């Protein structure tokens, strides 16, 4: 598998079988804050409201117990799409099929991750990857990707939005199998503290 980096320095992994590059990790608050630092419609009070759902943790103090606080959650799909547009041309939320194809591809990979992690160009990104690899005792890219054991992620299903993922029970109790189950929000427009996102870029 081939890796590259998005504009925030976090890794993207190419999935040729579905013609996309995907963020290896769910989008982090560190990445989202790069977006918030630029002039846009999301101010301090909006972000305070989002953080109230899933408080922020510094990547320097990340522990196993508060791992999910690293990731941006509680966004509505259109807010996630604004982030995708800022990330660059071709970035989008994945479809159900793309997300599951990535999951299957990563599960089949047993890449010796130590070989590429130090190449991450930004020290804070290297630190995050290093901590997660240690915490997760990651043996495969699927372990590291947190597609299981992470957050539920927004995906498209035709004209609607659903969630895929299997958070660990300590974060959000569930019995979901992301290859079979879809998580449907009960109310449209409700911010859900366990809903995050992972961007994909078309055209690989």
């Amino acid at each position, binding site marked *: 598998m081939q890796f590259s980096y998005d504009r925030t320095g976090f890794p993207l992994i190419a999935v040729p079988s579905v013609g996309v590059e995907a963020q290896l990790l769910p989008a982090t608050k*560190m990445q989202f*804050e*790069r977006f*918030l*630092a*630029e*002039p*846009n*419609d*999301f*101010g*301090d*009070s909006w*972000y*305070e409201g989002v*953080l109230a759902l899933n408080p*922020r943790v*510094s*990547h*320097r*103090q990340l522990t196993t117990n508060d791992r999910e606080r690293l990731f941006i959650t509680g966004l509505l799909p259109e807010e996630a799409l604004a982030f995708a547009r800022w990330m660059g041309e071709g970035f989008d939320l994945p479809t159900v099929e793309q997300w599951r194809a990535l999951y299957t591809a990563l599960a089949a990979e047993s890449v010796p991750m130590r070989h590429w992690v130090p190449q991450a160009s930004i020290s*804070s990104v290297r630190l995050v990857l290093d901590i997660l690899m240690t915490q997760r005792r990651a043996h495969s890219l699927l372990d590291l990707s947190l597609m299981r054991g992470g957050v539920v992620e927004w995906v498209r299903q035709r004209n609607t939005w659903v969630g895929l993922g299997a958070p660990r029970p300590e974060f959000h109790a569930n019995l979901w199998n992301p290859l079979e189950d879809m998580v449907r929000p009960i109310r449209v427009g409700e911010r859900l503290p366990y809903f995050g996102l992972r961007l994909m870029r078309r055209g690989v």
Partner: protein
Amino acid sequence: MALHEACGTLCTVGSEKVIFILDASESAASHQTAIIGLMRDVLAATPMATAHALYFLGNPVAYTPDRFTGQAIQWFQENQQRASLVTPIWGTLDQHAQYTFVIIGSGRIFDLEDWEGTPWLERTLLVSLGDSLQHTPAIATELTSPTAQQLCRHLHDPAVKVEIAGPGFMPMSWDNAVYSLHLGAREVALNAELLGDFSVTLRYLAMQEDGVKARVTHASGKRTSVPLIPVDPTGVGGSTAGLLSVDEAKTFLRAVRKELFSCPYCPEQHPWETLRCKAVGAGILGRLVYPSLQASQAKGFVVFQITEDGVQFDIHQGSVLRLDSRVVAIKEGHGASLYRYEMSSKSWLREDRPLEPYHQLEGQAYAILL
């Protein structure tokens, strides 16, 4: 674990260069007039050379402080839709630059905790004109609604003492003579006090190159820690090298065999350990039995090395000479004492034996002290 030899530099300690970071975000919008007023008054009371740059939270672009008064409203409008984040600014600045940061605003800076324990936050003063800029417990010094005079008093906090130390630290040479070696029971340090210029470049031994830091004490009593910047060892604490003449080389070779040798100045033969001839007319100190060293006005440690070309000499700058991987000789008065680094106690301990004349080093090298 072995001691490593490294070179580093410390510069602009105690610099009063200040970078101001203003909060134009939504959380500070209702305090904009107060922020502009305070900033204007502080700039008026601050030399332009002190106010190095001006930033707005979230924006890595530097603004020019001397244009603030005329441009403030426009600059706030340009930056009002940014969130309260400091990483975009600090992420672009050189960590070794010795700036003081002053952040003026209202409401939490979301990513401040990402910088806890870093030099940036250590050198930061938060100024709140409304809500606190940080969570509790506080991780940075914060003033609440100060006057310009109160803020300026906090900014004028020059360094009054610098102590360079770290695990296994032993300085071997340094280029600022006001620093002095301090051999404490628990650590070795290079100290300087009450100076205008604390900058220094040094060659040193340490367990880890990046473990050596400068502890800076400010006039207010505040203490900060500054890492040394690694530098190219070429030319740092360098030595003056030369080649002994054929006659001098004969003298040297007899001396290391502990044999009498013929003096170049008098008809006598001197014992092997003699370094100066005190015959009539040689002055109080006498003359060095190596005319080449006499001509070079050599003092301190000199290392002779037997090479294919003859006997080379190196006159070492500095009062500490490395003898082997864990032993140094330190010039004390007219003699030199030996210190060994003990791994078990992680400290430098004085040895009972002195530095011998023509102390043999590794290989075909010998050290003397003049």
